[in-house]
């Protein structure tokens, strides 16, 4: 740039509103309306309003047609929590969330630590590992549905390597189906965790590892006491995303099992769609939606308060370059 930057005092007169004449202030207001208005209208109209009316509908017994007349208060909520199927659905969401943290997280951390060295073909590796994450859940569901057919690809593969004893009715056995779905979710989302953690590992300064090595730390000690603590923010964000995702699980379940057999894989979201759209219980479905939202919201607030507080300022607001 040819012209030197203007001195700071001048910049202030350009920026600070109070010193401007009234006409300029009016213009600024107009610009703000032009810039912010459309986004606010869109956001309010299609995010906030629907959530607001869900709360309202949830107090009525309503089949989605005609006026809302049958006010039932909190009866829909009582019915939802009183039913074994909905309690089961919440339980299934919790099981998936806990399994993700107990199994997927250590697996991703372990694999990321193993991959975090100068391997040949790193770029290719990253691409392949991330591929399932890019596919839609719908496509993932269809792929696994076909592989898990009785006497299908997976069964044949297990028999081929002498593990025929493991063959099960993957999607038809109520005792197994939830874990089958968990395996599919792991296939789809593990790569995302690995890539996230590899990015986090890039942020660990090599000097720290060298210093630890000079002080006589074994590589395990360095990993345990230097690297893992520095991965803390990444791991906490991963847990957050994973739990919220587990609580909202729908696509996979709906396509692979419709929540069955015998409600053994029903989730809150599949229960919601089943009752709201299949059975036209819009009031009841709205109550379920509000419960699902409340659980996500409370989890987010509590987690924010106790685990993310130190990180979120950076995590949610830092620029992406």
């Amino acid at each position, binding site marked *: 740039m040819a012209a030197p930057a203007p001195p700071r005092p001048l910049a202030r007169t350009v920026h600070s*509103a109070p010193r401007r004449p009234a006409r300029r202030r009016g213009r600024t207001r107009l610009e703000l309306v032009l810039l912010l208005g459309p986004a606010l209208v869109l956001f309010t109209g299609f995010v906030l309003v629907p959530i607001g009316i869900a709360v309202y509908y949830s107090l009525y017994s309503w089949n989605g047609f005609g006026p809302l007349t049958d006010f039932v208060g909190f009866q829909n909520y009582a019915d939802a929590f009183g039913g074994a199927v909905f309690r089961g659905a919440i339980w299934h969401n919790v099981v998936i969330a806990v399994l993700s943290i107990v199994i997927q997280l250590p697996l991703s951390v372990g694999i990321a630590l193993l991959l975090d*060295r100068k391997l040949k073909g790193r770029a290719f590796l990253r691409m392949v590992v991330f591929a399932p994450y890019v596919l839609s859940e*719908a496509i993932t569901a269809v792929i696994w549905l076909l592989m898990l057919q009785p006497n299908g690809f997976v069964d044949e593969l297990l028999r081929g390597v002498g593990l025929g004893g493991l063959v099960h009715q993957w999607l038809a056995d109520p005792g197994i189906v939830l874990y089958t779905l968990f395996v599919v979710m792991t296939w789809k989302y593990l790569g995302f965790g690995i890539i996230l953690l590899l990015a986090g590992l890039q942020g660990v300064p090599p000097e720290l590892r060298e210093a630890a090595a000079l002080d006589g730390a074994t590589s395990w000690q360095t990993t345990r006491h230097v690297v893992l603590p520095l991965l803390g923010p990444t791991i906490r964000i991963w847990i957050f995303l994973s739990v919220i995702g587990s609580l*909202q699980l729908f696509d996979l379940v709906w396509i692979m099992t419709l929540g069955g057999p015998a409600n053994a894989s029903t989730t809150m979201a599949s229960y919601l769609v089943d009752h709201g759209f299949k059975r036209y219980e819009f009031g009841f479905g709205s109550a379920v939606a509000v419960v699902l939202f409340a659980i996500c919201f409370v989890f987010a607030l509590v987690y924010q308060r106790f685990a993310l507080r130190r990180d979120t300022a950076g995590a949610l607001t830092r620029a992406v*370059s």
Partner: protein
Amino acid sequence: MAGRRWGLVAGYVAAVVVVVVTVVPLLFVVLGGFRTNGQLNTDPAGLPGPWVWDNYRSVVTSPDFWRFLGNSALIAVIATVLAVGLGSMAAFALSRYVFKGREAVYVLFTLGLLFPLGVATLPLYLWLRQLGLLENPLGVAIPEAAFSLPVTIVILRPFMHAVPGELEDAAVLDGASRLGFFWRIMLPLSAPALTTVSVLAFVTSWNAYLLPLLVFNDSAHFTLPLGVATFQSQYSQDTARVLAFTALSMVPALGFFVVAQRRIVGGLTGSVKG
């Protein structure tokens, strides 16, 4: 150093295991599309022998696949343009103007990060019915854009905030209005961040299943995820054709991913990690 060499070996072993586990299901689908149902039944885990092109040919020559693809593209483009267009305007206002209630508006948008679309679908569906947007691509694209606004603004705002004030002052001295500054200087400067948020909005829309499922009844409007799931249940006896259909519907996502890999990975890891 023996330790380092073992580490390298372990790294390669882990890499091979992860790649095999990831790739085998994809290969099963792609190769299965080249087999007949007879081959699939007698040996589910075998290779094509002989290779048949009929399944792929029938999918490519039927209008369904292309229609689903077109619908998905149309909806994703509208959703992305809306989300990024309105989102960048809002982010500009929230980063470069000083006004009362600015932080409150920003917090309102960030709250949207916590609202999953699934929670709002039931009333959203009734709302769309009232607006006459059922069976209409806009009925999917507009809500998707609305739900993509929070992440768009959360990523763009700090980016725009970091652009030095001197640039704006210089532009103003040169006679540009603030909107002119936004259009001629801020948007071009924000290109990397705009690419990231566009990719995020596009991929989210492209992969969406629940909203299209509710809004569309007529298969003429189906998007690709909806189409794949429906095709599977419709032709469940013709596994080979379903495999070919599924394989082809993976192509756009994987192709786009290979081309935009750095942006997608950077965007997804960056948006959550910084």
